[in-house]
């Protein structure tokens, strides 16, 4: 369980970004304003910038552990409460995208992996190659263009009901679906070439039974593993998707903070998402150990 050192490291990096860049952090924070030397000095005092770096980090960590992510530099609102307020919207989006990804990726991977070399396999594989190459933010625009502008089937932006969720979820989940399909196919093809599958065939088990009892479980490993890494993509991808569809989530909060040079909010948002990412990967590790007991030994050591 290396999650705690990783989390500490993540907090060090976020802390360091403000201090490693050239120049006075107080000036960086006051960027764009006509600050007098007195104001800069006051801010340095207020931020504790005159104290030694380790002390500053310790205090930063102490505040983090108390759920204090600092204050927005633009409107003085607490970053933590801003994030808490926008969290449900982002979770909703990420979850919907995950559902889309699984609903498209798993059947496609199964179809391709159980009949390698057929036209169905080729179609699914090419679809996956293309799906991975399309930038999700462009896919989002294309979807809006086709389904909102041309066909008028679903609203192009805003939050409200199920229909406004469809396009963002597809745009964000599509690449993930392609990845799942590709990995599931690779896993299936690999497992089908194993001697124990031939042995099961020789014993006269039906194809369906072989698939459900032995093959599927073994073929899922790679897919589940990447699931954790891909959730990071969903969280990060939410930035562009929320902006395009005008959703008020953590992604659009980050985007606005970046445009207005609101560094405490940028740091808080990135740190928050990184922590979720690490936590979800932990969950995926556990999930993996449940699916494939062989990984247990190495995971706990």
């Amino acid at each position, binding site marked *: 369980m*290396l*999650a705690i*050192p*990783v989390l500490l*490291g*993540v907090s*060090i*990096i976020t802390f360091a*970004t403000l201090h490693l*860049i050239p120049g006075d952090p107080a000036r960086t924070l006051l960027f764009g304003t006509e600050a007098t030397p007195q104001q800069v000095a006051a801010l340095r005092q207020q931020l504790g910038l005159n104290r030694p770096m380790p002390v500053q980090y310790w205090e930063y960590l102490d505040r983090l552990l108390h759920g204090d992510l600092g204050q927005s530099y633009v409107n003085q609102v607490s970053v933590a409460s801003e994030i808490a307020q926008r969290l449900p919207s982002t979770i909703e989006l990420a979850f919907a995208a995950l559902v889309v990804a699984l609903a498209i990726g798993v059947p496609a991977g199964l179809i391709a992996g159980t009949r390698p070399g057929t036209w169905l396999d080729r179609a699914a594989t090419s679809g996956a*190659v*293309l799906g*991975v*190459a*399309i*930038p999700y*933010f*462009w896919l989002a*625009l294309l979807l809006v*263009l086709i389904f909102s502008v041309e066909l008028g089937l679903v609203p192009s932006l805003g939050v409200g009901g199920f229909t406004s969720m469809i396009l963002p979820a597809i745009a964000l989940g599509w*690449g*993930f679906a392609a*990845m799942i399909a*590709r*990995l599931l196919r*690779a896993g299936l093809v*690999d*497992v089908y070439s194993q001697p124990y599958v031939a042995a099961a065939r020789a014993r006269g088990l039906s194809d369906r039974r072989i698939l459900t009892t032995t093959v599927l479980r*073994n073929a899922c*490993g*790679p897919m589940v*593993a*990447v699931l954790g*890494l*891909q959730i*990071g*993509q969903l969280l*990060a*991808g939410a*930035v*562009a998707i929320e*902006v395009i569809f005008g959703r008020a989530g953590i992604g659009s909060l*980050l985007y606005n903070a*970046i445009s207005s040079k609101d*560094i405490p909010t*940028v*740091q808080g948002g*990135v740190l928050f*998402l*990184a922590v979720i*990412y*690490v936590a979800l*990967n*932990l969950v995926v*590790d556990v999930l*993996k150990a449940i699916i*494939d007991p*062989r*990984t247990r030994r190495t995971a706990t*050591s």
Partner: protein
Amino acid sequence: MTSDTKWWQWAAPRLRRASGQRMRLTTGTWVIIGLLLLIVGGTALAPWISPHSPTAVSSALLAGPSGQHWFGTDNLGRDVFSRTLWGGRVSLVSAALAVIIATVVGTALGLLAGYSHRLVSALIMRAMDIVLGFPALLLALLVLATAGGGMLPEAIAISLSFVPVFTRVVYLSSLSIKQEGYVTAARVAGLRAGTIMRKHILPGVRSEVVVIMTSAFGWAILLASTLSFLGLGVQPPTPDWGADLNAGQSYLVDGWWISVAPGAAITLSILLVNLLGDHLAGGTGRRTVRRRGTEHDAAAALTAVASGQGEL
């Protein structure tokens, strides 16, 4: 990410196929290379071959595709085809730079971790775990938002999340190469560690590194264009795929071509780079060598990085 086994979820089918094989170039590979050269050439030669200036405004606002303007014009009457030709310059160059930086730094760290004292390698690998604790796009956003834009900062910001990928692959490969007799022989012969790493271990990991490079390039293009889509790349009048895509967002109804052209250019570039990676790695003879027990888990890995979307 929580332990070294995690990496095995990262190493992909193509990586396994690549290890220890000579690369073969088939006709299909040459076709892909040709198309890629067409994109790179079009972008590089844009100043000479683009029919209009990418920033020259005209009275033909939001005009559809025509003989005069192949891809139409945007809201300021600028030629979209010319902007698309010019628009790859920043994204492609910063993506390439990012991959080069990550290759050099990541391979060096991986060799060092693989051949050094256990303490040093633990230190390096744990640091890599931490960097992987961030989704790549967020790490780049954090760095660029605080440090400010520009091509080099952008390339560095993108390369940050690739470094651990190179390091881990090189580290794991060099661990097994280290066991080979010729490395022991070199050590016994009194060669310095640096020489052994360079002359005896590096050649053994070269094909893996090349596979990751092609994989990472597609991903880097996506990251670079995402950053400029979010307004962290070049600033407005300069043509850029990501930025133009963002600008075209407001004109979906009146001028779909403004966003479709740069989007298609990004997609095509990533697609070709990924296909090239597949072809370079795809020695068809399936090697059945199972170097380390959990090889089947390896099936997962690099495709993620590989296919350009490992994690954004």
